[in-house]
């Protein structure tokens, strides 16, 4: 397995360096600097904002919900938060153009609200079922 790993690693380094060369070769320095800024900001936004928020949510969950409801809540939150990240460009309609009515032409906030409502309703239904089962037979199954 070791020769394969070394080969794979070397190939990866070569491919990555080719990408770096493509980046540096085809654009002005100011453009490359802006790419570098975005490159770093992306990681910082995740590591210093998104991940700590997920930590806070994880810490708050046990204080807010009974044990039997936590499972469905987590499943619902994973789906809602990640899909919401995908939806940021259309929810903000940042790219909308006044002369193009075929672009960003849906009621995104309403659509997103319906989607979140459906997921929340499904999670709530499972949570209620879990809580009832836990009450009737102590130590019922989690989601």
């Amino acid at each position: 397995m070791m020769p394969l790993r070394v080969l794979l690693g070397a190939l990866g380094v070569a491919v990555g360096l080719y990408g770096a060369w493509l980046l540096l070769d085809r654009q002005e320095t100011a453009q490359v600097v802006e790419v570098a800024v975005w490159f770093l900001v992306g990681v910082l936004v995740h590591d210093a904002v998104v991940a700590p928020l997920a930590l806070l949510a994880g810490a708050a969950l046990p204080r807010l919900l009974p044990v039997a409801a936590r499972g469905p809540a987590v499943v619902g939150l994973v789906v809602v938060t990640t899909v919401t990240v995908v939806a940021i460009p259309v929810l903000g309609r940042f790219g909308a153009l006044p002369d193009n009515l075929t672009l960003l032409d849906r009621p995104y906030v309403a659509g997103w609200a319906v989607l979140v409502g459906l997921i929340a309703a499904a999670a709530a239904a499972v949570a209620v079922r879990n809580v009832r089962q836990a009450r009737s037979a102590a130590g019922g199954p989690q989601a």
Partner: protein
Amino acid sequence: MTARLPLPREAAFTSRLRSAAVAARVGAVLGVCFAVCFVTGIISHWAQLPRPAVPFPTSPAWGYRVTQGLHVTTGIACVPLLLVKLWTVYPRLFAPVPKGARRLLLTTLERASIGVLVASAIFQLATGLANAARWYPWESFSFRTTHFAIAWVAIGALLVHIAVKLPVIRAAFGADVDDTALDRPSATVPGPVSRRWLLRSTWIATGVAVVATVGNTVPWLRGVSVLSVRSGDGPGGIPINTSAARADVVATAMSASYRLVLVNGDRAVYLTREDLLAMTQRSEKLPIACVEGWSASGTWSGVRFRDLLDLVDAPRGAHVRITSLQPKGAYRRTDLPSNFADDDRTLLALGLEGGPLDLDHGYPARLIAPNRPGVLQTKWVSRIEVVA
């Protein structure tokens, strides 16, 4: 007095869910998605080469619709996958620095490769997602050049990551997802869900993200794709990317003095739209498939492109340069490789779905060719020149 950031220690993360057993499984799917994005991205760049050394095929006509739809859809699928993957491995960010020069060097190199991988993955998904919604929040860099370059960086870093982690990946797939052999010593506290349910949540989130956006390119899912960038509506049932007003062609396109110029060497033929309508009219059902991932199929009518080339005795196998009425823009002038120019399905379209071409669709005349990125299906065509 020195201020210290209250950084957590790796050992402070106690959830059993943050395990290599979960990371390997989500990572495998994420890796496949990245590979699909990379290959379809390369295909898209190949399709946009003005004079490709290996000709881009004209068949199947729906090929680019599928590869580019897949590119954007798979990229969207990566968002939930990447977020969960990063969540499972987040404690590693705070792992203690090892002692000893050799181990320190190896750890530093590995961490650097992880940094490049995470940064390039986030960069690709963020810029791709923004571009698909025609949102350009950056000032100066070219999306196309940068997204292409960073794709190679991401795939390179991914290969290094797989090479480093191969033993862990094999061990993870060789054992049950609940196996604790690969866990950090502190990861002993059960989570609010099982590992299986964390994985299921990830697959559900990925599926929901895909279904909520893919109506852009899969017409029968338009009803439920509440987050797709386009509803699919537009003149003749086809959306628009650049309007005539934005391209600054309204006056020239509507002008009575409009002439299409066909040029081959010192031969030139001038045609009005009426002249074009008087030629043999053909009809082709061809998709418009945009780099932003949306696509729509339409029945176009107009003059077979090869019939126009015959008017100036252009030989078969000749490359063609097409110029638009638009006064500026990167796609004002495009190259049509010979295999597209000679394909019987390639039209200079004058109408769509039985009506005349809408001004925003390229009136008085536009190019429509099979298996070609929408950005190269030149609108408001004013000049067709044989170049070789």
